């Protein structure tokens, strides 16, 4: 299994944090490919791989684009998952032996109906408050009007980056980005499609729609 991590535009230690999260999520042996935009991040990732004993190689794909590939063996993922004790305990609480999956679906650029100016303030406040929650959602999906919140000009970029750094998957609907002509403006997280959105929503334990 190959997991791809996009850490373009992220400053250290976020590329390392994202890669560590991806390694934790590997079930068994696997490969994690991390894209970064600077050589120092390549060096910090390589340093981590060497300390952990992962196979590692890196290549320069373009000016300001590097790919670091780590090969993780099955026993290494096991130790990556078991390492922090509290996390193991937390996992045991849910009956299925996994964390509860909460998915947040952001469907508009505002929160609630009524006054949109107020709604914009509310959604910004909501996304900020999410960063402060003890239990974070596993994914936040942005579609239709919600797609503007992950793009340049949104007041929530830093909050979303902080959530992403803490391991929350940030996904924006690609069709929506195209429709609003925002494809070039995405500032945080990845692009997704209806198949993935549907999968996230149907497999969630809890869907939150602000």
């Amino acid at each position, binding site marked *: 299994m190959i997991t791809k991590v996009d850490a373009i535009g992220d400053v*250290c*230690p976020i590329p390392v944090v994202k890669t*560590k999260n991806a390694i934790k999520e590997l079930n068994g042996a696997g490969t994690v490919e991390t894209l970064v935009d600077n050589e*120092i991040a390549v*060096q*910090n990732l390589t340093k981590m791989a060497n300390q952990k004993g992962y196979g590692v190689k890196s290549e320069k794909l373009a000016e300001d684009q590097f790919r670091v590939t780590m090969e993780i063996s099955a026993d290494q993922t096991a130790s990556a998952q078991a390492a922090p004790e509290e996390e193991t305990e937390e996992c045991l609480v849910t009956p299925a032996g996994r964390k509860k999956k909460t998915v947040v679906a952001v469907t508009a650029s505002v929160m609630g109906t009524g006054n949109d100016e107020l709604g914009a303030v509310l959604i910004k406040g909501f996304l*900020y408050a999410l960063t402060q929650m003890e239990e974070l959602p596993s994914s936040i999906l942005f579609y239709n009007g919600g797609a503007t919140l992950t793009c340049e000009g949104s*007041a929530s970029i*830093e909050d979303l980056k902080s959530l992403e750094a803490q391991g929350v998957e940030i996904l924006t609907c690609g069709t929506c980005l195209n429709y609003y002509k925002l494809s070039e403006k995405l500032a945080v997280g990845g692009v997704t499609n209806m198949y993935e959105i549907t999968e996230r929503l149907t497999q969630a334990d809890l869907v939150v729609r602000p």
Partner: protein
Amino acid sequence: MSSEKITFCKGGGCTAKLGAQALNRVLSLLPKGEKDPALLVGFSSKDDAAVYKLTDEIAFVQTLDFFPPMVPDPYTFGQIAATNALSDIYAMGGTVKTALNIVCFPEKWDLNILGEILRGGSEKVIEAGATLAGGHSIADTDVKYGLSVTGIVHPDHIWQNNTGHPGDLLILTKALGVGILCTADRVGEAPKDGMEAAIRSMTTLNKNAAECCARYEIHACTDVTGFSFLGHLHEMMDGRLSARIWADQVPVLPGAQACADEFLLTAAAQRNRNHVGGFVRFEGIPFSMEEVLFDPQTSGGLLAAVRPDQAEQLLADLRRQGLPAAIVGEIVKKEETEIQVSMDHD
């Protein structure tokens, strides 16, 4: 709603410094004007501040330091930035006299945030016994704050950073690891006690440390900031001295090594490693300790080279001030390896 909090801190402090390698390339190309004999310390020595002699008794010391926030609280940030800027004067053996604010602030932000930053800064200037005499502010996309500080020093008692003697013992007055802890804090992984200790350390003026040092024969002194302990030590060696560092003696903030083991590392630390790693030989040093020694410090402590027979006494003075000071190594004659770091000394 305090939604500014997250935006406020993007990982600043001395981790935001340009790398020494990049900087040296640019500086070496600058046109050099006619040398003014009254300029006792300038660019050429890569020292912490410029020193200009006015009379045989008085020289003035001038420095400027500012950076983006490294902590989410504006008031604490103001305190740290000011403490850091004032430190350069102390590192030269000087007394601070006046300070000017330098601030960049987004026009649309709540001015109370700016007020808090300046309040923190102003309190530290007062604590230092100096006067805040003015300042300059610019509307900018991101927050940056610091001070331009002027102090005085006796021309015969300047502590340069590159004038140590073989045999001198090296004393460090603050614990290392603030860069790692602030970085870990940004992704919510810094232990609470570690972050609190880091903030206490960053807001502690080097005033008392400098006053203690002034009672002894200090041959060289610098403050440990963005270029890390090893980076500043390398500048201290100046290509003509070597040092042996005893890693088990180096004070480290609680939690910093644990965070380094989680690879919560700054880009600046890696740049420091790239810049000075070639001059350093580690002997049996754990990875996390290596990282601490390359960790960029914001408002770090003084690193002083003191006459060896006075070191214990100075250390006792510093400890009495409540500083986590330690004798961390010694200067030796130039050896093949400039800086040797081992776990203990015998």
